[in-house]
């Protein structure tokens, strides 16, 4: 709705400031008192509400703020709880109730999607802000119609994947497949590529951040020297990105091999099978990446007083 912005000004004093009188809804010139604009709508809050006023009647007559998750062009009518005899029928029940909330079909599709997202997110206890981001992303995809042809669960899973990544706590696609039954890795990959291509202004800054993955997977392994191993692993993975030939490897495979190496160096060696289960990768993949890393082991190790427990003696060959 484009309209030329009406710049109000007093015709006798064009430079004077205008005072807004909310009581009468007038805009008054401060120099001569001429009423320049009338019927100004005050959009501030009508009543003040306090935190301890939970049971008190909500005096606000316009309802709550807009929920960005839904298309807000439908207006609903709600019938308040009535008091007095005419409002109550013979059994003591309210005579008139807000029976069915008429949601439009577009809203219903969105609502289904949001429910699916919330259910999936609950399975891995994602943070509230990530879930909200995922819902917003779902709405964007729905409006832009960019993921047509994919089922709701697939789009929901992809939205969760993207919002986890954007929120700084990436979940691997395999983990998302775990919380989304019926959605395969391939489908999420395709949906993700489609959304990346077609959604305007879609920016996914970094590649999957490995630090977060390392700390999570180490947590799954129940290590004694958890913090030290996480530090060593982070250092190794950053060095390995620069010097080793592991560019095309999936991040979870790299993390698996790196944690394996870190555990071996510190002396708390874990079998590759455990690593495979914790990261969700195959043992042979971890072995392959580990072989690549072990070619340059001496350059990958961290140096410093706190890393004195690291030794190359216990490094397994495979």
């Amino acid at each position, binding site marked *: 709705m484009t309209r030329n912005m009406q710049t109000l000004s007093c015709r006798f004093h064009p430079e004077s400031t205008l005072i807004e009188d909310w009581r009468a809804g007038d805009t008054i010139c401060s120099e001569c008192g001429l009423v320049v604009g009338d019927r100004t709508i005050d959009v501030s809050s009508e009543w003040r509400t306090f935190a301890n006023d939970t049971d008190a009647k909500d005096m606000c007559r316009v309802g709550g703020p807009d929920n960005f998750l839904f298309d807000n062009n439908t207006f609903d009518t709600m019938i308040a709880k009535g008091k007095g005899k005419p409002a109550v029928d013979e059994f003591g029940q309210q005579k008139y109730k807000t029976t069915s909330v008429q949601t439009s079909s577009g809203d219903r599709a969105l609502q289904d999607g949001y429910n699916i997202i919330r259910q999936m997110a609950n399975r891995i206890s994602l943070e509230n802000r990530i879930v909200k981001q995922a819902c917003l992303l779902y709405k964007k995809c729905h409006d832009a119609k960019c993921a047509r042809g994919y089922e709701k669960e697939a789009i929901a899973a992809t939205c969760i994947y993207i919002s986890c990544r954007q929120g700084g706590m990436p979940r*691997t*696609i395999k983990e998302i497949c775990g919380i989304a039954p019926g959605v395969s890795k391939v489908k999420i*990959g395709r949906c*993700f*590529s489609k959304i*990346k*291509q077609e959604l305007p202004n879609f920016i996914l800054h970094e*590649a*999957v951040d490995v630090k977060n993955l390392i700390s999570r997977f180490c947590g799954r392994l129940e290590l004694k020297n958890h913090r030290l191993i996480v530090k060593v692993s982070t250092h190794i993975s950053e060095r390995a*990105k620069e*010097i080793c*030939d592991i*560019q*095309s*490897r*999936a*991040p*979870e495979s790299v993390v698996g091999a790196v944690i394996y190496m870190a555990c071996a160096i510190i002396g708390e060696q874990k079998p590759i099978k455990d690593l495979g289960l914790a990261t969700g990768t195959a043992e042979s993949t971890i072995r392959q990446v580990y072989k690549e890393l072990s070619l340059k082991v001496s350059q990958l190790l961290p140096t410093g007083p706190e890393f004195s427990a690291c030794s190359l003696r216990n490094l397994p060959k495979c």
Partner: protein
Amino acid sequence: MVMMKLRNPHCTANVWSSGKVTVTGTTSDDDARRGARRIARSLQRLGFKVHLRHYRVVNCLASCSMPWPIDIVKLSRLYPESVSYEPEIHPGATVRLTEKAVLKVFTTGNLTITAPCVERLNTAVNEFYPKLYECRNQRQY
């Protein structure tokens, strides 16, 4: 849909009951045309009254390799609008050029090019070569 395979030229044809035929798997566009004509001829011999109509080349796939390995992470960082690299999904980076050509770039230096015609395949490589050269991996593993 019936799948017909020819020995010479080596190709696979998908024949639909509507009359549409897709010929895939040949190594040159001339071979593709010969294969399409062979399919049409074999259908004529079977008794169907068919003609080869609306023949056109739809998709060409080529592969080549650069003599040096490529740093695809650097490539995806320098040109984020055209290069998409998701190691979880595919080990190669996908490059979408402005005019209907898609390259898949791998760390080994191999390239796979997909384009709607053969000429575009060549121009696509020429177009993207300077950027690949910029992102080559100088280190010897």
